[in-house]
């Protein structure tokens, strides 16, 4: 299994501009109440990573309870809104509109340069190493036209499919991408034979990650590639900040799988992991910003000392260490259908 460390230079506020992101969280909280909690359809679930049922309650966010799996240390929401309600949320939520019109808009240049372009290169590199003549590419639940543009520029795939996108696909991309407007859970076996399927930041918010991965497996050809990213609770900033983390909130992060949980889940679903990396750049920066913006926030003394008394070199080296040992909260996984 390969493991990758990335050296890059961008900061939290370039991706999540503070003011807009805070406003986005406020809207999300209201929408969670309106579209999820008020419906009262909460369902008790086992650990979405290892299926374990031993857990302890940790904290509440936006009215929903996060529990920690006693076996694989995954943090997840249970009871959680029903699958139907969650799917509906991502269609009807005003928070998502705000996300695109403000947070993404303000950070678009950085996102293209540091997220979408490298992501497309990752897809390209692994695809070229696995297929001499790549056929069908499928992106599940697309969130960004700009990423699709990067995929389009690769000129790599014979067929490109956008499956159940969460955005309106740009007119300029409609000639390039075939649009399938239904949930992957409703795609019949044999309907799509994909060489490569991508799902960026989807696992963390689907009702049942195991069903989701199993369904992806059915649309992949033998030895087909699944590439996905998600947030992991094994990451430094999430471990340190825990309930104080701004990026732990429903419904976008109802499944914060641990690294160990990810391995169990992916292998249980019939995949061989060929890469599991945590190439996140922001853990140290996120904690530094959290301390700056909240005098009362308590973090371990060593971390406080490190961040107050050492310079950029130390932060960069520390972030690299986190990546090296799969301790950053952004994880990327490449897996081959067994």
């Amino acid at each position, binding site marked *: 299994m*390969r493991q*990758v460390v*990335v050296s890059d*230079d961008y900061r939290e506020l370039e991706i999540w501009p503070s003011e807009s992101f805070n406003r986005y969280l406020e809207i999300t909280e209201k929408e969670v109440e309106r579209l999820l909690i008020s419906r009262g359809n909460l369902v008790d679930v086992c650990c979405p990573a290892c299926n374990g049922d031993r857990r302890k309650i940790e904290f509440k966010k936006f009215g929903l309870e996060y529990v920690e799996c006693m076996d694989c240390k995954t943090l997840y929401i249970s009871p959680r809104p029903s699958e139907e309600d969650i799917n509906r949320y991502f269609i009807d939520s005003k928070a998502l509109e705000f996300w695109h019109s403000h947070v993404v808009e303000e950070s678009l240049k950085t996102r293209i340069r*540091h997220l979408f372009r490298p992501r497309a290169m990752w897809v390209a*590199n692994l695809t070229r190493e696995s297929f001499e003549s790549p056929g069908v590419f499928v992106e599940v639940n697309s969130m960004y036209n700009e990423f699709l543009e990067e995929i389009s520029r690769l000129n790599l795939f014979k067929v490109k499919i956008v499956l159940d996108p969460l955005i309106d696909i740009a007119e300029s991309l409609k000639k390039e991408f075939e649009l399938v407007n239904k949930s992957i859970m409703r795609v019949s076996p044999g309907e799509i034979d994909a060489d490569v399927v991508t799902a960026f930041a989807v696992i963390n918010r689907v009702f049942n990650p195991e069903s989701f991965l199993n369904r992806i497996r059915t649309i992949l050809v033998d030895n087909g590639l699944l590439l996905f990213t998600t947030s992991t609770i094994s990451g430094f900033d999430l471990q340190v900040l825990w309930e104080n983390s701004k990026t732990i909130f429903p419904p976008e992060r109802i499944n914060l799988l641990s690294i160990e949980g990810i391995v169990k889940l992916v292998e249980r679903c019939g995949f061989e992991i060929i890469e599991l990396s945590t190439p996140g750049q922001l853990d140290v920066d996120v904690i530094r910003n959290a301390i700056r913006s909240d005098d009362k926030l308590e973090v371990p003394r060593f971390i406080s000392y490190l961040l107050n008394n050492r310079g950029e070199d130390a932060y960069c080296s520390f972030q690299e260490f986190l990546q090296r040992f799969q301790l950053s909260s952004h994880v990327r996984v490449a897996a081959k259908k067994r």
Partner: protein
Amino acid sequence: MDKKIKVGIVGFGKMGKIRKGVIDNHPDLSLEGVCDIVTLEQTEPLECEFSQDYEDLLKTDTDAIFVCTPNKFTPEIVVSALKNSKHVFCEKPPGRNLNDIQNIIKAEQENKGVKLKFGFNHRYHGAVMEAKSVIESGRLGKILWMRGIYGKSGGLDFEKQWRSNKEIAGGGILLDQGIHMIDLFRLFCGDFQEVKSFVTNSYWNLDIEDNALAILRNEKDQMAMLHSSSTQWKHIFSLEIFLEEGYLIISGILSSTRSYGQDERLIVATKQFENESFALGNPREEITYFNRDRSWELEVEDFVECIKSDRKVTVGSSEDMLKAMELVYRIYDADRKWCKARGGKFI
């Protein structure tokens, strides 16, 4: 071939024992005999035949022989094994000069049914295979140049080892270790026609080299720079490959002692010529870590597959070895001072 391949090992020093470990774990191989000059009492307990004469091993019904002897003895054993219709896996270098490898090739050509593979295991290291895959994908364009450093320190008994004895080894650090880097240069860029070099023995004062610096150029104008050293007090393996659109750096190579690093690292980056001054000369890099050395098992696996499916040896072939050894001796020859002090050219 459904039945197990019966193998023997000639030379039961460090390399022979490494090969035994791989053979013991391979489902298609059965170790029938071991041969070494030491007595049975002096070696580790064995569950196979033991002999002090390699010819005894060649008389048995073994299918293949692993030759893990010092350079002086290797050519005779390999030629004899080939003539006895045994497949041969041979450690590098298979002799002390070009005549030795040429004689081996002659025996190979006269015994067409047998497979002959040489131990260029570096080609099977994770970082090297990954680098090859990236280069072959074409996404970084054509190779412009390479820079390889492979060095180790001698140690207390360095002068007493057979590798330090010209009569037995034939050459110094370049022939013994640097040849791996030369093989990797060939793997990525093919053969080199032009050679310039400096070769010295200024520290260990042996009659073989302890440092060789060489620059090579091929017909495609691809250049390679090599430093092979036995005065590298901190062990190092580094191969930089720069291409039209980016670069790869292999840093560290996994060894049994981990003295060349705890991991092998492959750095891959795409050049950034954007109109943003901060990006110039400091591109985004991706570092892939490899922490398991499967090179020994993979190269033996390839040898086994060649035998089982009667496939031509394409990695570590006799041609690979001949070309690598030719380059070693051309590097010696390109330093006039080195040649003059040794009574003339080597080739």
